[in-house]
């Protein structure tokens, strides 16, 4: 069958079970867009900015477990994808970016809207392609999807010169890929799994550190089985949140810089860390030389390069989290760790960073706690980056798997708006809440229009402090309260702004209004926005200063009052 390059892309997308694209056209990619009407099964969502197409595709992937696709033209279209590609790369998200390029003969001549898309995105994609012949399209598409979603997933960019899109060639979609340099290991080494089981048997203070890998591989049941069988408490990293039911008695929540203080102390005392699909990021470990000084480490990860990268490992297990946990859960013996769990519960009482303190002010933590209760911990949350992100991570009690989407590795402000949009397209049945900062929201709020156009039923909770709050916190705590370039004195009236888009909105300034506002927003059929005017000077605690150990952790005000501070 002779097809144009553009038709071949569409045929390939259908074969990869894609039915949704986020994008924005331009000259170089135009032949692709003009072909779309021939493929009504490919639904295209026209965005306001390519960055948002990228984040939407990313969130769509995270929420659905499928592969999100974004489309942009050459030059500025492609460069606008840089941030979402880097975001997806850091968080191991499978995603395909399709970009137009200037015609082959013009490449390298600084033609109008030429940019070296594959060069620019080299370090922020798992792999990328410049397709120089229509005959290569089927193979490249097949490889790209395979690479994006297997092994440790990641984004793949495919750059198509305009005349490759119009060139005709024979279309035959390959059955399989032939990549001699790419063969991810899925099955854990049997010997290593036995050794791990032995370490678990010997351990008296074991903890599981569950990361994004558990969610990516869908290892929820396997994680639970292991934890319950050997009675091991489960700590979830920022991206591991919602890998384990937070209502479970063994669930401990987040560790690290803004993690629960008792978790950091538990890790400090632990004699065995069972790390699954996490990579010992500096936000988790603090100073490496002081991290988990008493613990041996079992590290399970699909990416061999992560094992041993930051932390000395006793038993390395390279493989898919689901398969390895399944095998490990069979291998371990039943156990109880009554004393250890009691010890952690004591730590929890002494360091109650999971509790929201009493205050007459509208505390952002309180807003999150109310949202958690009203939605029964069953909403899907998408956040930006900063204080609001940390409060949501700390105080929302996630009950369902894979209901928390956030930019962890890159820390991309602005993810909250297009991310929530992409998540809703993946899971339109869910109550999708965007937990937004007033800073991040304004970076990407242009997508409100897109959301209205497609009746995207997302609820926005802006934790509005008129600050780049997290940076203000750093200045207040570590730079003598010298506030430089962190105050937003000219923020718009977010209620009026939403209304200008035809979005229902309300403002909350008092504690007493919180619950009703949430309920009202949920009753709206379509997008809704709540402008929570939260206490602007509130800080996120605990706070382990960057590069420090748990001993340097600042725990913040006590539960009773505003005045007393504890270290």
């Amino acid at each position, binding site marked *: 069958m002779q097809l144009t390059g553009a038709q071949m892309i569409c045929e390939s997308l259908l074969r990869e079970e894609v039915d949704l694209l986020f994008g924005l056209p331009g000259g170089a990619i135009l032949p692709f867009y003009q072909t779309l009407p021939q493929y009504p099964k490919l639904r295209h969502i026209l965005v306001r900015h390519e960055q948002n197409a990228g984040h939407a595709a990313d969130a769509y992937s995270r929420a659905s477990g499928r592969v999100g696709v974004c489309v942009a033209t050459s030059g500025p279209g492609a460069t606008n994808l840089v941030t979402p590609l880097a975001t997806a790369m850091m968080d191991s998200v499978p995603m395909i970016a399709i970009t137009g390029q200037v015609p082959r003969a013009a490449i390298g001549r600084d033609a109008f809207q030429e940019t070296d898309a594959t060069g620019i995105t080299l370090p922020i994609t798992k792999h990328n392609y410049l397709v120089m012949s229509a005959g290569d399209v089927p193979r490249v598409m097949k490889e790209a999807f395979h690479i994006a979603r297997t092994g440790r997933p990641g984004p793949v960019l495919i750059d198509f010169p305009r005349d490759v899109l119009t060139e005709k060639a024979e279309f035959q979609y390959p059955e399989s890929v032939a990549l001699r*340099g790419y063969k991810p290991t899925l099955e854990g080494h049997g010997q290593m799994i036995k050794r791990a089981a032995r370490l678990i048997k010997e351990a008296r203070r074991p903890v599981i550190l569950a990361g994004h890998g558990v969610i990516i591989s869908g290892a929820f049941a396997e994680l639970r089985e292991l934890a319950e069988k050997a009675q091991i408490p489960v700590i979830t990293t920022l991206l591991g949140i919602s890998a384990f039911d937070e209502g479970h008695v063994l669930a401990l929540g987040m560790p690290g810089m803004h993690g629960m203080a008792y978790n950091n102390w538990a890790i400090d005392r632990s004699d065995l860390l069972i790390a699954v699909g996490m990579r010992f990021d500096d936000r988790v470990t603090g100073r*490496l030389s002081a991290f988990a000084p008493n613990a041996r480490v079992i590290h399970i990860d699909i990416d061999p390069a992560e094992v*041993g990268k930051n932390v000395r490992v006793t038993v390395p297990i390279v493989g898919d989290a689901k398969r390895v946990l399944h095998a490990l859960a069979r291998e371990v013996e039943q156990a109880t760790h009554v004393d250890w769990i009691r010890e952690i519960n004591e730590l929890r009482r002494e360091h109650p960073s999971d509790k929201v303190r009493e205050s007459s002010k509208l505390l952002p933590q309180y807003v999150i706690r109310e949202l958690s209760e009203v939605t029964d911990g069953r909403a899907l949350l998408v956040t930006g980056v900063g204080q609001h992100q940390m409060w949501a991570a700390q105080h929302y009690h996630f009950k369902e798997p894979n209901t928390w989407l956030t930019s962890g590795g890159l820390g991309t402000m602005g993810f909250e708006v297009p991310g929530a949009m992409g998540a809703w397209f993946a899971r339109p049945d869910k109550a999708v809440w965007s937990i937004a900062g007033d800073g991040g929201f304004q970076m990407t709020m242009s997508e409100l229009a897109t959301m209205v156009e497609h009746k995207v039923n997302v609820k926005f909770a802006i934790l509005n402090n008129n600050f780049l709050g997290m940076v203000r916190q750093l200045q207040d705590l570590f730079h003598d309260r010298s506030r430089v370039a962190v105050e937003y004195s000219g923020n718009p009236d977010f209620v009026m702004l939403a209304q200008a888009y035809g979005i229902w909105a309300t403002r909350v300034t008092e504690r007493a209004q919180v619950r009703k506002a949430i309920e009202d927003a949920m009753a709206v059929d379509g997008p809704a926005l709540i402008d929570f005017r939260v206490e602007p000077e509130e800080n996120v605690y605990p706070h382990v200063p960057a590069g420090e150990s748990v001993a340097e952790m600042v725990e913040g005000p006590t539960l009773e009052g505003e005045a007393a501070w504890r270290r």
Partner: protein
Amino acid sequence: MAAVNGHVHTITALVEDRPGVLTRVSGLFRRRGFNISSLAVGASEQPNLSRMTFVVHGDEWVVEQVTKQLYKLVDVVRVNDISHEQVVARELALIKVKASADTRSEIIQIVDIFRAGIVDVAADTVIVEVTGDEEKVDAIMKLLKPFGIREVMRTGRIAMARGAAATGAKPASAPVAAQSAPDTEVVP
């Protein structure tokens, strides 16, 4: 025996012969801060595969990371740390030296001692070709320097396992987590 000179390692990689593969590899070294002192690329005995040889400075942790990160590149098929193997390691250098009628015979003497060769003679220069390990190339350069070196071209080290075994017959198996990563400064 290859130079396991302190913290110097010789690593070879078999890579797909595709556009951009050199950029991917060199970009990886730059981005992750790996310190390489030489990189040589050429065709291998297998069609569509090239072989690269790197000389990397660092401890076991660095070598382990280099190896694993290289493996993550889709175009990299096999990586070997041959620092601990019996290998023949060579590099080739072309050295353009000023040579007058007076100094030419002296230069030829040096060239002979090193079993090097003269591959071009002009009115006032000669080009010396020398093959050997880095020490040998360094040594001849040192002796030629007083005559006036105009230009030097060095290929960088290439290396091959001695005996019947093919270089890279067994994939690199750096010890897992020989040590923890050093603490570094991080973003506040």
